[in-house]
């Protein structure tokens, strides 16, 4: 149970968390700044930025709101990236019990993400 405080797992996971969050928040900030500068639709305009066309339609529109959506997508994908990196670190360190544990969490999460994608495109009903 006792391990070095700054082991490979800790370093990798914290780096991915910091980078993913900074990147996502940076993109959201750029989108919000463009919203304010261009006077495009914002919360202050009292209109909804949500679309019925789904996420890809929003991002492809390349408007300030779509840049915000891209940032939110990066934010949501950060925990998935953390799990991938944790899995690689456990494999490299030979911690087989945690390889199994992380694989199960990652597997179920990916199934959940894929199911959400299928449902959104109508494939899954």
């Amino acid at each position, binding site marked *: 149970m006792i391990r070095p405080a700054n082991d490979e797992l*800790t370093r990798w996971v914290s780096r991915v968390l910091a980078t993913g969050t900074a990147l*996502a928040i940076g993109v959201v900030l750029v989108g919000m700044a463009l919203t304010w500068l261009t006077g495009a639709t914002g919360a202050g305009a009292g209109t909804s930025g*949500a679309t019925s*066309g789904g*996420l890809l339609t929003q991002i492809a529109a390349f408007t300030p709101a779509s840049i915000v959506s891209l940032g*939110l997508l990066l*934010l949501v994908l950060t*925990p998935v990236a953390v799990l991938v990196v944790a899995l690689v670190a456990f494999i490299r360190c030979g911690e087989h019990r945690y390889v199994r544990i992380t694989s199960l969490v990652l597997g179920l999460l990916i199934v959940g993400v894929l199911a*959400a994608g299928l449902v959104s495109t109508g494939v899954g009903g």
Partner: protein
Amino acid sequence: MGLDLLLAASGLGAGLFGSILGLGGGILIVPLLTLAFGYPLSTAVATSLVCVIATSTGAAAHNVSSGRADVRLGLTLENGTVVGAVSGGLLAGFLHERLIAGLFAGLMAYTAITMGRELLRRRAVAGTQVDVLQPSAPDGPGAPSYRRHRLPLALAGSFFAGIVSGLLGIGGGAIKVPLVHLVMGAPMGIAVATSNFIIGVTAAAGAYAYLVRGEVDPAITGPVVLGVAAGAFLGARVGPHIKPRWLTALFLVVVVYVAVEMAIRALGA
């Protein structure tokens, strides 16, 4: 822009509160967006779920690098949660929401009593405050040892947390912090940081589902997320300086609030 600033300020408060107590902040964001800003509940829930991830990742980068969040314990307990969430989804048609809410209320009431007794005990031995937020904890030398024999019970609790979060849309941190602290025996600071780390993983699939369906409004979620991320960043740095006893007392207030909320839901009032 004025409304954006108000939304960001609300997010800042929720992120700070959530990261200090190991919660996603949804118990603040949803009422704020619906009651104070007048947005529909569906919009508030979608925004809240994305903000849980902002709270988690914003705080966890610091918590993991400083060694306060126990990544291994968090991932182990997450197994129970994801299996519970999937089971909850499959059993949704058979489980009565009011029954789950009643069980959840009971669990929160028990947690409140246990935490309250812990607070009273510490008062009785004033002056012997344990320094639990060691920089090297939980993995370094001198780290607290967990009650490893209670892992099956903690996994069962995580499983229930998964069912509850799937059916009631609440319960991540409110269950995980007591599980790590009261069941596994970890200090409150480690329980908070570990919960903070793992609730982002729990929320990811649900948040992605809302996002990919285009149900997350960027005009509302954008400013709230910016505030939440800033609040979580601050909270992860302020939290370790709060005495564990105060953390427990603050968390106790949240647990009592959730217990009352769930009891009302269970009674159908």
